[in-house]
């Protein structure tokens, strides 16, 4: 499955979650997101970092 198929799984109408008396609109609020790098640039950074043994619990298996 690719990105477009995954995207289709998002209901384009806004979800409203009604929990008891509270109603929440379900959407990513820009104020809650800190901006990062686009995927291609991030992948390059991860590629570099993965060669450096940054985590002491690397032996996870």
């Amino acid at each position, binding site marked *: *499955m690719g990105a477009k198929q995954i995207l289709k799984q998002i209901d384009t109408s806004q979800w409203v979650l009604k929990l008891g008396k509270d109603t929440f609109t379900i959407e990513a*609020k820009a104020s*809650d997101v*800190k901006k*990062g790098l686009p995927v291609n640039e991030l*992948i390059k950074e991860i590629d570099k970092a993965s060669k450096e043994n*940054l985590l002491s619990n690397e032996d996870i298996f």
Partner: protein
Amino acid sequence: MKTSSEVDNYLLLDSCIVQYLLNKEISPNLRQQLKKWSGDIFNFAISEITYAELLNGTLKNKEAEVISLLDKFYSFTISKRIIKGCGKLGSVYKEYNQSLKEIDTGDRIIASTAIINNLFIVTANVRDFPFPFFSSIANYNIIFEKKRNKRMISIAVLKPNYEFITHAFNHRL
């Protein structure tokens, strides 16, 4: 109308996925699959709880590098509404099935972040985001070699099941 380059959809990476991205045996295949799942549609995001979970396994002299890398992801703040959701989710999980009370706070913060912001979660630990609260929409197995043995991890894209979550919250005891 937004163009596809104006990305505002996110794949929320569980902390274990970020951990695997930093593992040299797993990272190449994982990066390739994540890139396929993201296309030019999704950005990779993390919850701020991932800082805590990764720094917990980081050597002191590498902390700055780990923080610097995590700063390059889009990240979702742990707001009060997410913390409240995390707490309530714990109660709902427990009522649904006693075994779900073992799911820790960090995973429930990630779950609550996904539910409140309508995000997909990418994880290698599907048990931490249990069905029917979340449903799997894509899976992929990564086979890699470690100490001359072949190993496998399964990763999945999960989405919140809003019908069930609404039902579970509204029928709490």
